[in-house]
């Protein structure tokens, strides 16, 4: 049980600053997902919490006490690596019991704890096997087992599911979340997959170029993205972003005029989620449909607006009207419109 506080954490490699000040307070038992594109610094941030990278600036507090200078082993954390990092020369049981053996626990106690964890993860049959005799999903479980056996205060996950196939990933996603909820251990989870972030997180940190673009619950970020980057990164298919001109009578997109919910003036960026648009014969948006992708439950229509900007709409069900060059009129409720400053990319209103 622990809280983790990051206070303006920075990381520099020589002159380049890769983490430019991230602050977040993680409550006890909370599941935080750090999400962002590759190279945004999310793994570096996690490794700084783990103690595998030094912290250049700022303060890390675990359970309220400064942990910057503590060695990884003194931080009471456990980490699950992307490639699992199992000890290849040890059996599953030895892998899981390694940390306890280092602590000097009696053999019987280690065996009992390993057995309990193995049961929890359905690994009992595999305890005598070597890692190379296991499948990817099983290795993943062993890595989890190694983490939970030690009963740490904080779990750290570094893209633990990215080496699994799509189906297994969905299954393990649920298992990790269930396990974490059951054990109630504070967790930091790094991923580049926005679906994982949306489904698993209590709160997520959307990172871009070493900065936290937004910190909030998945639905917060989805419904009220604080920046253009967060708006486009979260949600699939990603949000349409078009330049618009704010005037007294509304937002002008070429000849099209939309309501102006924020009353913004001058050039702004307007974000419209594909799934929030609906066909409306009298709607303000005119789109030329070029291509339809029927997904079964919904249909994606790709095309462009009258001013040439590309645009995507997601309509429920099968939408046969989409083929060939055809124009479609759409409307969107004003409260689903997101307006961003053109220069800073921050949300307006």
């Amino acid at each position, binding site marked *: 049980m622990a809280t983790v506080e990051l206070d303006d954490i920075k990381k520099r490699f020589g002159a380049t600053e890769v983490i430019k000040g991230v602050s977040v307070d993680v409550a006890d038992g909370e599941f935080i997902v750090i999400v962002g594109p590759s190279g945004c610094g999310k793994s570096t941030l996690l490794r700084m919490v*783990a*103690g*595998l990278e030094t912290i250049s600036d700022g303060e890390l507090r675990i359970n309220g006490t400064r942990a910057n200078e503590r*060695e*990884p*082993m003194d931080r009471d*954390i*456990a*980490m699950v*690596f*992307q*490639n699992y*990092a*199992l*000890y*290849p*020369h040890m059996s599953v049981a030895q892998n899981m019991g*390694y*940390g306890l053996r*280092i*602590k000097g626990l009696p053999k019987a106690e280690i065996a009992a704890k390993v057995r309990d964890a193995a049961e929890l993860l359905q690994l009992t049959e595999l305890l005598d096997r*070597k890692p*190379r005799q296991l499948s990817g999903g099983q290795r993943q479980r062993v890595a989890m087992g*190694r983490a939970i056996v*030690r009963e740490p205060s904080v779990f750290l996950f570094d893209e633990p599911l990215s080496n699994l196939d799509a189906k297994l990933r969905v299954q393990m996603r649920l298992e990790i979340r269930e396990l974490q909820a059951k054990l109630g251990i504070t967790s930091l989870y790094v991923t580049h997959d926005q679906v994982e972030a949306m489904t698993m997180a209590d709160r997520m940190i959307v990172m871009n170029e070493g900065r936290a673009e937004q910190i909030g619950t998945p639905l917060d970020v989805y419904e009220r993205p604080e920046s253009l980057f967060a708006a486009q990164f979260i949600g699939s298919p990603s949000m349409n972003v078009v330049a618009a001109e704010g005037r007294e009578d509304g937002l002008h997109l070429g000849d099209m005029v939309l309501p102006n919910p924020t009353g913004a003036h001058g050039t702004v960026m307007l974000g419209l989620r594909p799934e929030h648009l609906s066909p409306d014969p009298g709607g303000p948006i005119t789109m030329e449909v070029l291509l339809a992708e029927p997904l079964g439950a919904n249909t994606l229509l790709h095309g462009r607006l009258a001013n040439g900007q590309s645009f995507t709409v997601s309509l429920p069900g099968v939408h046969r009207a989409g083929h060939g060059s055809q124009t479609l009129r759409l409307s969107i409720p004003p409260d689903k419109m997101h307006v961003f400053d053109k220069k800073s990319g921050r949300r307006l209103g």
Partner: protein
Amino acid sequence: MEKRVTFKGWLLPLCLIAPQVFISAVFFFYPAGQAVWQSLFIPDPFGLSSQFVGLENFEYLLGDPYYRASFVTTAIFSTLVTLAAMIPALFLAVMADRLVKSAGVYRTLLIWPYAVAPAVAGVLWLFMFNTRVGVIAWYLGQLGYDWNHVLNEGEAMGLVVVASAWGRISYNFLFFFAALQAVPRSIIEAAAIDGARFWRRFFTIVLPLLSPTTFFLLVVNIVYAFFETFGVIHTITSGGPQQATTILVYKVFSDGFVGQDLGSSAAQSVILLIVVGLLTVLQFKYIEKRVHY
């Protein structure tokens, strides 16, 4: 997947293996055959004729206390050389692996001794430990220790071991260093998070992962100590004092070319051949099972 290339005819593959077969035949099979053949004869004192004696050379050797003493000397010598060449090499490799800056310089410098031929290395060490002009011998004298490897058997053994192992440290270092670099970072990090500090990690994680390399070097170093240390021993002690550093290979030389007993010398080299063959088979059979994980 393993890729196999199949040849259509037999001429090309024959041409391709011919150089190897030729070299093996001329430099290995022919001399080995000669040795086996000669081991069955005793030459007369003047070397003008020889007489067939069957296995009598072997019989004599196995009953000869000097020869049996040489076996023990060889066992001690090769064990010490292997340890003295491998442990410092591993230590240096571990230290070099921890370096972030100027690891390349350090690495290059550590490889240099390997370029020194064993005989030259022998002379080098001999000068340093020479009882009259040696620097180290002089310093030891200042400290009150009377170094004299010409008279003291233990000191003679120590000196040839050090001189033999010195150049090999570089060679072993290279292999250990490469193997250390191949250990996945994340495994080390996982162990660090699991609570293992540096040396604990080294003995429980790194060393087991190095075992294929360690095993390979073990075999190679033992074979080196058996066969390739001749130059060192010849330049430093010539097998003395009193046979104290006469290893089997050196005895083959001194009996055959100094003592002119070619029959016995040939018989010794045949025995040596068998011993090394057995040793290698034994190592692979026994240890290989434990090496793979």
